[in-house]
């Protein structure tokens, strides 16, 4: 379901109110802020790290550290833009720290399980996650933000501090890479 502009405005207004109170030291406001965004924090971490245990770690780290990091939130962008940037960066750092060998070059994407077998066995999600996890970082991040989480090109560009054109280009390459890998499985 896509949120309307009115719903997005209202959500942003609520976030601003909660952020203001949390920065003034109101723990109840912080908890509500986390409650509103915890599932997306978790999902972005899961899709970028490609591993549930890593997503657990990243989610906990973000929840704990955001409380103090809020002091550094200038409020010039939407809270969600800032939050998702923190989650993306922490997920990438976590993955580099714990599984530095996982990051493949674009040229050495080797096939894993055959999609026919996986999909037929009802494991489409697992097959998709495996393929996404093998994308290079620069392709994986826009794919997770736009294709999987449904954010706009403008939002993804703000989160990754790039241009919309860059996001579009990287997303197109990510889609092509995924299709090539899926095809190599057949």
């Amino acid at each position: 379901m896509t949120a309307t502009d009115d719903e997005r405005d209202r959500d942003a207004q609520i976030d601003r109110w909660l952020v203001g109170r949390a920065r003034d030291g109101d723990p109840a406001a912080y908890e509500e802020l986390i409650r509103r965004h915890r599932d997306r924090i978790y999902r972005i971490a899961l899709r970028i790290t490609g591993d549930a245990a890593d997503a657990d770690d990243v989610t906990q780290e973000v929840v704990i550290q955001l409380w103090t990091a809020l002091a550094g939130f200038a409020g010039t962008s939407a809270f969600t833009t800032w939050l998702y940037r923190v989650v993306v960066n922490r997920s990438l750092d976590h993955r580099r720290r714990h599984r530095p060998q996982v990051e493949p070059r674009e040229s050495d994407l080797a096939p894993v399980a055959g999609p026919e077998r996986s999909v037929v066995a009802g494991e489409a999600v697992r097959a998709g996650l495996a393929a996404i996890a093998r994308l290079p970082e620069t392709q994986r991040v826009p794919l997770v933000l736009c294709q999987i989480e449904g954010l706009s090109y403008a939002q993804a560009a703000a989160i990754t501090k790039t241009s919309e054109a860059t996001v579009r280009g990287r997303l197109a390459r990510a889609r092509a890479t995924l299709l090539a890998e899926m095809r190599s499985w057949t």
Partner: protein
Amino acid sequence: MTETLACGRATAPLVEQVAEGRGQVLDPHQARCPHCRAALGEIERLWAPVRAVAAERPEAPPSLVESALRRVRGSGGDVEYGRIETPQGHTRVAARVVVALARHLAAQVPGVEVALGRLATEGHRPAGELVPDVEAGVAGGSTAVQVTLAAAYGQDLQALGERIRTVVARGVREVTGLEPVDVTVHVDDVFD
């Protein structure tokens, strides 16, 4: 699949078409072109696992987030209980339960945009975190709750406060058995 189909169309736009969920929306050329329709069908098939990932919406494990929030709160936030005596024994209700309940109840009242709950603060723990009136809360099964909220613009705030008081008092009483002796409503902001 080649970059250009036999009909002269490039495949990249077809990939975008499928990835953006428009694979079934054919333009006039595609509607009569077997090359385009075959390519779209093949891309749809290959794209299915990615679509399955996007359709899945896993939620953060609640215990995981709660554990992290407990570390943020530090120790001491969860120790106060309300106590309801019965001839067969007693029931203890953690202060956090009352707070969460009050917040949830208040947030459901029409006109409330967002609500935060806390137990009455005056004379109790600094920052007012989760502390009931200790004398009344523990010994007498009573509790005092404060609800801080942002309301929708253009309504009678006094009437809103009364509605919240009624809903919160009744809900806390029914669910916990504690008697809400005081429900303070603090309207902190109004949203246009």
